[in-house]
């Protein structure tokens, strides 16, 4: 692409947006998964809710724009962003090198770590690759957990689920010996009745090679301007305490420090 035309293009794009929304307030479309409690999930009245949703609303309020949330399955969440189904992915996505080839991330809005979960009665204490040899380990597909398992646990049988909920169901029913998930939802899940079967095992997995630099919002690479505005608003809601308030509604741990 010829760079000199870029400002003209941007101007044209901006014009088309402003023409389109001459009467209405600017709308930012946010894609999320809706199957990842407590970060994003559907309530019984069909509404999206959760930590990600509240953070999204707070950022939109700070930016002074309208928010529209769109649910998308995880496997298609980046393709749909690239196909302009929405402008931002706000779905507790780890910032990884592989994903950076496709999309651009905002500053992290959560720190990231993964953990193993095993059945309380399984007697599994060590989760290093040797002791997990031949075991069945579950994870959600297209996630960093799935990549981690594929490269660090070549001798385990790896099952990949379309949603974390589906993996949780099979963990509770004992179909899999262990699973790997993000620290927060796993902590949350084992505290529920459904997850009472299970407990965390091993050390937290914080190797940046797998968990990246944290959890960010993903945008199309060319939407640099929107990305900067989101980064600014994110910094605002962290400094004015809004972030902390939302954090406390869902978790006892601080998501930025994991403490």
């Amino acid at each position: 692409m010829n760079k000199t035309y870029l400002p003209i293009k941007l101007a044209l794009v901006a014009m088309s947006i402003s023409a389109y929304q001459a009467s209405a307030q600017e709308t930012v479309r946010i894609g999320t998964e809706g199957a990842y409690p407590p970060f994003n999930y559907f309530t019984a009245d069909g509404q999206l809710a959760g930590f990600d949703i509240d953070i999204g609303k707070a950022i939109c309020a700070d930016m002074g724009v309208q928010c529209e949330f769109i649910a998308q399955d995880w496997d298609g969440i980046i393709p749909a962003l690239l196909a302009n189904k929405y402008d931002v992915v706000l779905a507790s996505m780890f910032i990884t090198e592989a994903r950076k080839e496709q999309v651009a991330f905002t500053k992290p809005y959560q720190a990231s770590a993964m953990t193993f979960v095993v059945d309380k009665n399984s007697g599994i204490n060590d989760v290093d690759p040797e002791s997990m040899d031949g075991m069945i380990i579950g994870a959600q597909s297209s996630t960093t957990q799935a990549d981690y398992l594929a490269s660090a646990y070549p001798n385990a049988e790896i099952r990949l689920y379309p949603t974390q909920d589906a993996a949780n169901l099979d963990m509770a029913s004992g179909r899999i010996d262990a699973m790997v998930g993000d620290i927060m939802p796993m902590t949350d899940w084992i505290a529920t009745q459904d997850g009472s079967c299970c407990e965390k095992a091993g050390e937290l997995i914080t190797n940046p090679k797998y968990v990246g630099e944290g959890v960010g919002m993903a945008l199309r690479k060319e939407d640099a301007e929107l990305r900067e505005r989101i980064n600014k608003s994110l910094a605002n809601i962290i400094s004015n305490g809004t972030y902390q308030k939302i954090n406390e509604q869902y978790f006892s741990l601080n998501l930025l420090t994991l403490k």
Partner: protein
Amino acid sequence: MLDVLTRFAPMLADGALITLKITLLSVSMAALLALPLSLMRIQESRFLRWPVQLIISFFRGTPLIAQLFLLYYGSGQFRPFLMEMGLWGFFRDPVNCAILTFTMNSMAYQTEILRGALQSVDKRSVEAGKAMGMPMNLLYRHIVLPLAYRTAFPALGNEVILMLKGGAVASVITVMDLMGQTRRVFSQSFDINVYLVAAAMYLIIAIVFVSIWRLFERYLNRHQSHRVIRRKPITNRTALN
């Protein structure tokens, strides 16, 4: 394209083997079950006919993916009970659940195909057998069933193809069949060519199978090779034919 092939072909080939295994196991077990059921289905007695009709209607009237979810995640909910019965070891494995679901589904369709074929058997052939004083079991073994299976043969072949294609839904319960491997590779690479390679593999499997099935069909009908065979479809659920 070539690059995609060399990188992903081994994984997709692994998946294709699982797809073949699941399809062949399901349709052959279904074939074993379909015979007695179709014989029950053509009886005069309502008590024999109705349960079979109900089962067939359910499996033909609901989506395969819904049946699979019901059996897979539904059985997970009844784990304590299944453990007590000693069945959990079976239900624990997603491949087993897929094979069980597909067997029941294919059983329903094959029973209907066989019912049609049994009812289309020329009454005069049966009467000829009776006139020779053949007992019931001989009559079925030597006259009714060979005629019925020959009539049903093309439709049964279609059913295998439909199971091969329908079986792709097993990928949603973590089975790493051809579809499952394809989706995994796509989710890592976002390379649309992966789907095209998978499509080619499915087509090749289907075409090879159809060719083999046609050879068998010609073998079964070899006594009629001097005649022009016009066969009527037994069922309207058609695939490659």
